């Protein structure tokens, strides 16, 4: 039974495929930002009749910004991956996350109200999922664990719900 496999009290990393998923999501975001700002820029330029140099400078600035966003969304996911982990033991679940602001969130089994397993289109293509654990808390009313294999998410969910009842 998968359910018992997740309870080992050992810290586990996310699924390495989550790096790729993050990069794809980042690429989509960068493209959206790039196209959107380019559109705005073109409209602006047509309206103001600029000189050639002005056009070149603005386009260069746009290119630099979009390149920076793209580079960031390529380089950042491995860092995130390295600093994320989860662990389940007898008393509950712990999720470690964050590169600059690091957090370790402990959720006792008995405090799990319900759980969601969520899959976006990109996640689905790679067989990954996001586990959302809901508690009665306020600041941490729901805690997300993104970038784990879909079957792992299901196993954790089954385990948390079994334990709860």
């Amino acid at each position, binding site marked *: 039974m998968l359910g018992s496999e997740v309870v080992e009290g050992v810290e586990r990393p996310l699924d390495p495929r989550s790096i790729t998923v993050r990069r794809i999501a980042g690429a989509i975001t960068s493209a959206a930002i790039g196209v959107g700002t380019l559109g705005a820029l073109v409209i602006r330029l047509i309206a103001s009749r600029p000189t050639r140099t002005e056009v070149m400078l603005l386009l260069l600035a746009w290119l630099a910004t979009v390149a920076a966003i793209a580079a960031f969304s390529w380089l950042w996911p491995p860092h995130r991956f390295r600093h994320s982990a989860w662990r389940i033991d007898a*008393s509950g679940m712990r999720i470690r996350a964050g590169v600059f602001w690091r957090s370790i969130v402990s*959720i006792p089994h008995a*405090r799990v109200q319900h759980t969601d397993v969520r899959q976006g289109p990109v996640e689905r293509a790679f067989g990954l999922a996001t586990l959302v654990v809901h508690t*009665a808390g*306020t600041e941490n009313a729901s805690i997300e664990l993104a970038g784990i294999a879909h079957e792992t998410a299901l196993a954790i969910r089954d385990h948390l719900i079994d334990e709860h009842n």
Partner: protein
Amino acid sequence: MSTTDAGSGWRRLHPLSLVFRIGAAARNLLLPGLALLFVSRGQGYELWLAVLFVPAGIAAIVSYLSYRYRLGDDELVIQQGIVTRNERHVPYARVQNVDLVQNLIHRWLGVAEARFETAGGEEPEAVMRVLSLAEVAAIRTRVFRDPRPRAGDAGGAEAVVAAPVEEPLYRARLRDLVLLGLTSNRGLAVVAAAFGMLWQLDVLGFDPERFVRDLGRVDPSVAHLPAGPLATVLVALAGLVVALVALKTLSVVWTIGRLHGFELRGRGEDFSARYGLLTRIAATVPRQRIQRLSIQRGPLHRWLGKASVQIETAGRSGAGSGVERLWLAPWIDDGALAGLVARALPGIDLDVREWRPVAAGAGGRILRKGLALAVVIAIPLAVLSGLAALVVIVPLAGLAVLHARQWPRHARYVLLPDAIVWQSGWWTRRTSVARYEKIQVVAQIQSPFDRRRGMASIHVDTAGAGHVGHPFVLRYLEEDVATGLSGRLGDEAGARAFRW
């Protein structure tokens, strides 16, 4: 007066509900209605007003007629709606409190609004607007399964709220509320509301620029004030004093309006509180459902040997829910405090000596943070007004130094057998207590600054913890201490089942 369908057990709200619903609809349409009067300049406005008000009135009637409820064996069932029929089941076991809210008109007519608070939401689960007092008493009895028989409800509100075995625990005198008002800044809310009103007036054609011009004409002395930095400082100080007096006056008025006649009673293990000058509130709080208790002591409290005690129950968190986090005792003698706390949290004694301090380096970090903030404020000020900026910067830096010295001295925590206690603040000192049983999530957070100094903070999350008040965040702990603490808290919480 509530109509009961014999047999099925379905009941309707009090017929006066209809009046209140139409009244509420009219109030919502008041501003658009007034705007309409202005826009139409009195021509044909009757028609437009009718267009606005008649559908609202019909909607109110329909919603009254379509609303009915039933007290089942172990749940409250509410049906409402005509087109989309909605049936809501609220299990009695999940109801945290049944609060009774009565504004002036309600009191005059002998009816009340009942709010059913359940855990896990800022909004009440169900609001029944309005019921007769006898009906509220019947519902309360049913919900809380009070086995004791109740006194007859002949005496109106007083008799209904009071169960026979209630014992008085605390009563706030007017003087207490004045003092509490002086320590609070709730007047700010009134000021904000006044600004909101001005904003609305603006929409209706108020011209602030003209207002200021006119003011200058009325009081030309404004233009002849003596010049020079000293005069500027004096004027600024005078303005500050006036603002402070106004703020505190409003806060006192607000506090009295809110808490007038505050009375706390014990009902067996549980509490019931009644308060309010214009709008009377009667809230019942089962002891089991107290999620967190907070004690506040400002300078005035300490000088007079007093404390203010608040509790949080799940599903109650100020914004939106009308009934705020509950006062257990707004202004109580230090001597009586321990008894009250023992009653609210049995087995928990706050008179402990094993307090643990925060990290030794906390003061240095707070100082650097404060000075950095002072510099950030200082730069634009210095650019704008040169040396005169020192008037602001020097006291600010002094405050930063004082804060950095005082804060670590008064921040401390202790792990009791059943609860964690966190105390912080030096000007206004706050103590929060949460039973391990009520801790939902423990988070250990490390900012980049924390990491550099080998520190971390622990966030203790409970149900119903509002965003105002005393944050349950243990800051500036040594990293290994924090790791140990978060593990221990997780284990303690995990070892206990959570009952709301």
